[in-house]
């Protein structure tokens, strides 16, 4: 390499994103093999459902399953054609979860949800299939198209503002359903902005933490025996805490608050390694919850019901008790798809079974064996995300990937724990399995971004400029 070629002025940012690079197909055999196993499992599952319901060994909804598998194949082929060296495990894992969701929605009464699109009305399974297809399209497209992260990393405060704006919009204009103000309705379209918010949160946090990481680790304000980060850096953290509490109070969405705060603390630890910060955060959280529980009846009820649902078996505790009964009926192997969930008055025994309690339904039909497998798949998705984070080229991408993995993983944990009475029941959805378009699309966006970040042939991030904080720090010396 000549000296001229060696000289590089620090340029600051990389070139504009190349949306569609040259088509250079690359085989993805591992992904294909895994997708085949997924397809086999879903076909067998569909036959099992069909046999239970109709008495003959044929797939229950061949058209629905066929469309789903076809879209999966299409997604795989699109990725092969795009030729990026992205992760090959994420798509099959998501596909398996989505397929299980489809089977579950097919098995539940179709009139649980009726949506009218363009004059035709669609039942539960059909709507979920539409959203699943949409989710797969979003995930694949993002995974193929997103080649640079500068649009995320440079505008982090803009993104934060968008997030806060969305939040405020929901506070003010949101429609109250079941005592929770979660849904925003604009014209015919309604969605849950909190799903998108969690992605924006991670984008902002990744940027903020990667930039200020060294300072957060090194510099301290002393507050008695405590060593806190410098005061100006404490501010965003306290702001996070306040936002979380705000969500609980105004939106009555305990789950989202738990999720935001959990992701925030975990990312903070991952970035700084300082347990003291996490401990302070936890203390703040517990204090805040204690105060909230004292002030707000609905939170206190949730916690009482969590501790002893049998104290109000026909009222607030009904849902959780029915969920526990579902796991009990399932036992080790379950009752088989379609074989459980005895109806009470023509309805499934657990209210909101398609949104809040799909895990309990799967617990009854697939047994503990099935539930553990599903939990394992979530753990796999988290692990992939964390692995992508650890292998990333710089701090921002690392934290972004880690944060995205955590957002999916912690959300899955929160609702699964609520189903199993390990945590109070909250209204978050089980990613990829619960019914809900906003949830599916937002989580698909997360997986798509993870795949984009996992590209092993990615262009390097901008090298450190002489104005970089690192250089300043190196000059000042450690400590």
């Amino acid at each position, binding site marked *: *390499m000549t*000296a001229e070629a*060696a*000289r*590089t*002025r*620090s340029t600051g940012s990389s070139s504009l994103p190349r949306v569609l690079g040259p088509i250079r197909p690359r085989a993805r055999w591992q992904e294909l*093999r*895994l997708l085949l*196993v*997924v397809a*086999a*499992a879903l076909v*067998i*599952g569909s*036959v*099992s459902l069909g*046999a*239970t319901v109709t*008495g003959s*060994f044929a797939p229950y909804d061949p058209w629905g399953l066929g469309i789903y598998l076809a879209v999966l194949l299409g997604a795989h082929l699109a990725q092969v054609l795009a030729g990026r060296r992205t992760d*090959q*495990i994420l798509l*099959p*894992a998501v596909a*398996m979860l989505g397929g299980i969701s489809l089977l579950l929605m097919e098995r539940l009464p179709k009139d649980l949800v009726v949506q009218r699109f363009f004059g035709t009305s669609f039942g539960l399974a059909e709507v979920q299939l539409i959203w699943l297809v949409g989710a797969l399209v979003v995930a694949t497209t993002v995974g193929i198209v997103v080649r640079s992260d500068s649009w995320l990393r440079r505008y982090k405060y803009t993104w934060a503002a968008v997030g806060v704006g969305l939040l405020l919009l929901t506070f003010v204009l949101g429609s109250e359903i079941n005592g929770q103000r979660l849904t925003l309705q604009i014209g015919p379209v309604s969605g849950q902005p909190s799903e998108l918010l969690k992605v924006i949160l991670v984008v902002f946090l990744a940027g903020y933490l990667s930039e200020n990481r060294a300072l957060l680790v090194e510099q301290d304000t002393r507050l008695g025996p405590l060593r806190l980060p410098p005061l100006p850096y404490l501010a965003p953290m306290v702001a996070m805490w306040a936002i979380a509490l705000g969500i609980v109070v105004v939106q009555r969405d305990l789950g989202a608050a738990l999720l935001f705060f959990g992701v925030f603390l975990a990312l903070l630890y991952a970035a700084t390694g300082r347990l003291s910060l996490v401990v302070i955060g936890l203390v703040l959280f517990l204090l805040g919850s204690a105060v909230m529980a004292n002030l707000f009846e609905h939170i206190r009820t949730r916690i009482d019901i969590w501790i002893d649902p049998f104290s109000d078996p026909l009222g607030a505790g009904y849902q959780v008790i029915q969920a526990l009964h579902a796991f009990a009926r399932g036992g080790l*192997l*379950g009752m*088989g*798809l379609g*074989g459980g969930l005895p109806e009470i008055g023509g309805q499934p025994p657990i209210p909101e079974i398609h949104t809040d309690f799909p895990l309990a339904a799967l617990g009854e039909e*697939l*047994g503990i*064996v*099935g539930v553990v*497998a*599903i939990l*394992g*798949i979530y753990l*796999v998705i988290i*692990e*992939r995300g964390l*692995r992508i984070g650890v*292998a990333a*080229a*710089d701090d921002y991408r690392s934290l972004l990937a880690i944060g995205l993995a955590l957002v999916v993983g912690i959300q899955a944990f929160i609702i699964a724990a609520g189903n199993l009475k390990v945590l109070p029941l909250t209204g978050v959805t089980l990613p990829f399995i619960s019914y809900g378009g906003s949830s599916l699309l937002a989580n698909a966006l997360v997986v798509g971004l993870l795949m984009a970040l996992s590209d092993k042939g*990615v*262009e*390097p*991030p901008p*090298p*450190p*400029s*002489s104005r970089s904080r*690192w*250089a300043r720090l*190196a*000059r000042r*010396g450690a*400590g």
Partner: protein
Amino acid sequence: MDGFTLVLWGVRILFLALLYLFLARVVRALLRDLRAAAREPADRPGRLVVIESPGGEPAVGRSFGLDVITPLGRDVNNAIVIEDPFASAEHAVLTYRGRSWYLEDLDSTNGSYINGQPVDGVAALTYGDEVQVGQVRFRLERTRA
């Protein structure tokens, strides 16, 4: 148990088995990937070998393992301490990003050089290139795997 129920339960258990087959294959792939990553010396992707050192510190022939960011200079807090009157306290930083090496000169008094050429701000270098800080010259080499 009649025939139909027997086969039905067989199918149900087959479904659960396929779920676990999927999980097993994925976990196997994960472990393989993790083991490969561990074998890759991710935090020591290269080394600097001293080829000339008039002051004797660092010694000629000594090989420094490199991290992803390695500061060089006279100050004792540097990862590579260069005891040379022509080296500044914080002289330069060698970084490894996205499979490439970069040398950044930290506004040192006498400058840093790659293959004899002065470095203005940040410059890229590759294995085999020679780096000069003060009077000490190093060569960037791959880690002996």
